[in-house]
């Protein structure tokens, strides 16, 4: 699971859960896999993100280094920053661990890099 994916996931489908966002990450295995750097793509993706959630997530798995807590305007002109964001969003992968719903504490396992967000019928609202 890449952090670009984590930035969107919610547990809102759980019974009784209002927002279910962001999910806390507990990682037992994190890998970094090289992805081609494309500044144009990263620039286009950044505005779609919840930056604070990305910042917290990256730090929680030990990859927050060099990532500013708030995003300055004109971030697209800062290539070093774009490279750091590229790495954190696309190259860092949580292979094993789990995601935790902030309201209910329900855990979603991440196994072989794939989070399992499926619920049982009784859990769905």
């Amino acid at each position, binding site marked *: *699971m890449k952090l670009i994916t984590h930035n969107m996931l*919610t547990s809102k*489908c759980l019974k009784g859960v209002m927002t279910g966002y962001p999910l806390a990450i507990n990682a037992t295995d994190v890998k970094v896999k090289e992805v081609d750097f494309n500044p144009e793509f990263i620039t286009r993706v950044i505005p779609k993100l919840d930056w604070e959630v990305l910042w917290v997530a990256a730090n929680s798995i030990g990859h927050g280094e060099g990532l500013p807590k708030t995003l300055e305007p004109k971030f697209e002109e800062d290539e070093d920053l774009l490279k750091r964001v590229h790495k954190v969003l696309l190259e860092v992968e949580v292979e094993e661990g789990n995601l935790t719903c902030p309201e209910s504490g329900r855990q979603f396992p991440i196994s072989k890099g*794939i989070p399992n*967000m499926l619920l049982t019928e009784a859990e769905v609202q």
Partner: protein
Amino acid sequence: MSALMKLKTLQGHLESINGFEKPKLKFEQYETPAHLAATALYTIQTQFESIENCTVLDAGCGPGMWSIGAALLGAGTVTSVDIDDDALQVFKENVDDMELTNVDAIQCDFLDPRVARWEGYFDTVVMNPPFGTKNNAGIDMKFLRMGTLLSNDSVYSLHKSSTRNHILKKVKDWGMKGSVIAEMIYELPAKYRFHKQHTMNIAVDIWRVHHAQ
């Protein structure tokens, strides 16, 4: 970015993908033929530029025919979702064999919009949805509708040609625009016991459904 991969090369790569180990009827697990996926994806990129540098979602990815094709054609990221654990295991092996790193998979129910904050997030959604059986008629349209809600540009989806008029009407009802960009033959191998013939040929359309501008 590197030049676009040749169609033949793309098809060659897709032919090496492993299929479902034990296809499950309840999820209508049919593999998308490699030549079909390759031709469709190539058209989607060359005519509409909807793959390279795009955020792409593959809904109901199965072993990954569309996802891997899109990744090979230079998608910025491919997000692949499927409900079935076994299919995702094969998917993962296929992606790792190809050494693709711009792909990320999630096990979830694509038809539940609360799984992720994806509304209008993806540039492109590709899918080979379940065609629907007696027990879940209309599931193809549910997939297509969800695809349109999660995309900000276009959805490319495979449907039986016999449903063409129905789709046209629905797309209009949704306030979107759509057209068939390719007509193809889907050779369906006899995977399930109730299939009497060896293979079945089904006429299918590749639809491009996009937000009206």
